[in-house]
């Protein structure tokens, strides 16, 4: 546990001493803020609806989720395996699982920070006299973080099976695209079992269906946690497999 915290802390420090995290944060917050104003204008001043758009209703949110987590996680394992730091971590008194989950939590904390920009928008509109529905906003934020966990897991897994960060990022982006676009593709099929099968892994629907309406449905929480856990598990196994290669 101690080792896990040490790794999370190191990863966060590593993210923020480099320019990449700041650049991602800058671009994402700028884009989200500009879009929030745009949503607010086009939705006729409906604050809650605009916040919902910011945290998942719009395609920009999903585009960010497809692109940002892979860029965060691409270096986490692949580069360390190349520079030999992984050798150091895997001979330090921490388990392989602690190494991977430490990195996972660090990336998740970063994304949680990124989405918490929505609270700032909430505060701003509240200070202008229209307080948002804080419960719905918080539920949406929780959903966004849980949803990010899934994409971070995919990114870590991609990073763990290659030694080249760019390949890891590319692989993760492709996997993320598959995840997000699968329901659209399933819509082309008229076979009901295909639709049902894809609906059970439909990330967008799971996110919109519960969290954005302010509902913390445990089955939906389990959906995201288990998918994240599955990819983290794969990443741990892939790191372990490096020893055998």
């Amino acid at each position, binding site marked *: 546990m*101690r080792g896990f915290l040490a790794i999370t802390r190191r990863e966060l420090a590593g993210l923020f001493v480099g320019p990449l995290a700041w650049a991602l944060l800058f671009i994402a917050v700028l884009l989200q803020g500009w879009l929030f104003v745009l949503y607010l204008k086009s939705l006729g001043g409906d604050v809650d609806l605009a916040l919902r758009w910011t945290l998942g209703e719009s395609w920009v949110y999903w585009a960010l989720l497809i692109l940002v987590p892979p860029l965060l996680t691409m270096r986490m394992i692949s580069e360390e395996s190349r*520079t030999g*730091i992984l050798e150091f971590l895997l*001979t*330090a008194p921490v388990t392989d699982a602690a190494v991977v989950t430490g990195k996972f939590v660090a990336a998740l904390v970063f994304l949680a920070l990124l989405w918490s920009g929505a609270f700032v928008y909430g505060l701003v509109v509240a200070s202008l006299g229209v307080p948002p529905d804080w419960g719905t906003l918080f539920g949406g934020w929780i959903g966004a973080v849980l949803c990010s966990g899934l994409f971070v897991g995919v990114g870590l897994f991609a990073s763990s099976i290659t030694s080249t960060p760019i390949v890891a990022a590319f692989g993760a982006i492709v996997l993320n695209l598959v995840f997000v676009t699968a329901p659209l593709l399933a819509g082309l099929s008229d076979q009901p079992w295909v639709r049902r099968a894809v609906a059970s892994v439909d990330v967008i629907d799971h996110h919109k269906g519960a969290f954005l309406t302010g509902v913390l449905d445990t089955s939906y929480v389990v959906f995201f946690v288990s998918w994240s856990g599955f990819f983290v598990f794969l990443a741990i196994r892939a790191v372990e497999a490096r*020893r055998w290669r």
Partner: protein
Amino acid sequence: MISVAHLTRTFGSLRALDDISFEVAKGEVVGFLGPNGAGKTTAMRILSGYLPASSGTVKIAGFDVLRESLEVRRRIGYLPETVPLYREHRVVEMLEFQARLHAIPRKERASRIDKALEQVGLTDRRRDLVGNLSRGLRQRAGLAVALLPRPEVLILDEPTSGLDPMQRLEVRGLIRALRDEHTVLFSSHILPEIEAVCPRVVIVHKGRIAADGTPAELVAKLAGASHVRLEAVVGADPAAAQRILRSIRGVRDVVDHGRLGIHHQFELACDEDLREDVGAIAASRGWALRELSWRRPTLEQIFARIATGASDEVERPAGPARAPAISAPDAPIVLGGLSAVPRASTVHPTLQPTVQPTVHPTLQPSMPSTAGTAPQRTVYNLNPFDRGATRSLSVPKVVEDPNAPPASAGPDPDASGAPRS
């Protein structure tokens, strides 16, 4: 402290380690020596728990590396060949990370980090970014990271590779200083380095342990690889000079490397430093010396030897190879008198593949067939360190000199000869 039994590791069809067994006692410093690709790094990775073994067991401090991995990891400090440091962090931050990984209590952290930095001499660079450090400094920072948890066993993979000579010296000194507190296993492909630091050397070759012992023992096993080099003006008859040199006690063979200007080059295969004996002869014969040096075996020669199959024991030429006269304890150096023909047959063939007379046959003076017909000459043994010399040095010894031509009975007929081509 370290116990390795029948360790084998394969990568596909490649056997990187093949049934390796050795033990390292607590407090020992062991050097792992081998050429590139011998399996040193693989062995160290397995010892550190990074790679699992294909078969065999490795125990460190009584814990199995595979089954009780975490216990082992708490007890080792491992420095891989590529120093594992985050480039974007400062030296002290890297040490703090290591302290947290090893759960060093917060109270002790600062003082132990200070001590580790002091040990490697990086106290004034603690705030430097790792990425800005030179390679040598980075190596030292890596060593500080490995030392910080005060591990019982230190595993250092080529800690001196890529360093300049001064930095090498420093790292060597550091490892020597660590002997008291830690059991150290470190690898290198540089023999002098291992000799300077390690009381014990394990030589790995093609995944097997080729030799295990103290450097002196290993060198002794390589008898014949060390040699004395002589470059001198020996006169008109280098073959005679070669015979004279060959007769020195302890010399197993003399290789004539031919003439270089007016000088002749010889290589005397011997186990010990025979420079004094050779110098004494050169003085007595009046040879003008240009070089007289003792060359010890290099790693390349060790491996040539090991790889060519004379694995552990190198057969040495037995008694008959030496001149019978030498066996008398008071005998001085016997000059000449031994035919090269029976000698060559007694020497192990692998030791001297290239013994060739370089003098043109027509230039060689005719040799007296029997020693008895040669005139007697008085020779002083000038070497005060002559091994086995029990007689008084002031008493001249009369010996037969078959090489002295009867016509010119001067003191040094060989030296007077002008260089011929």
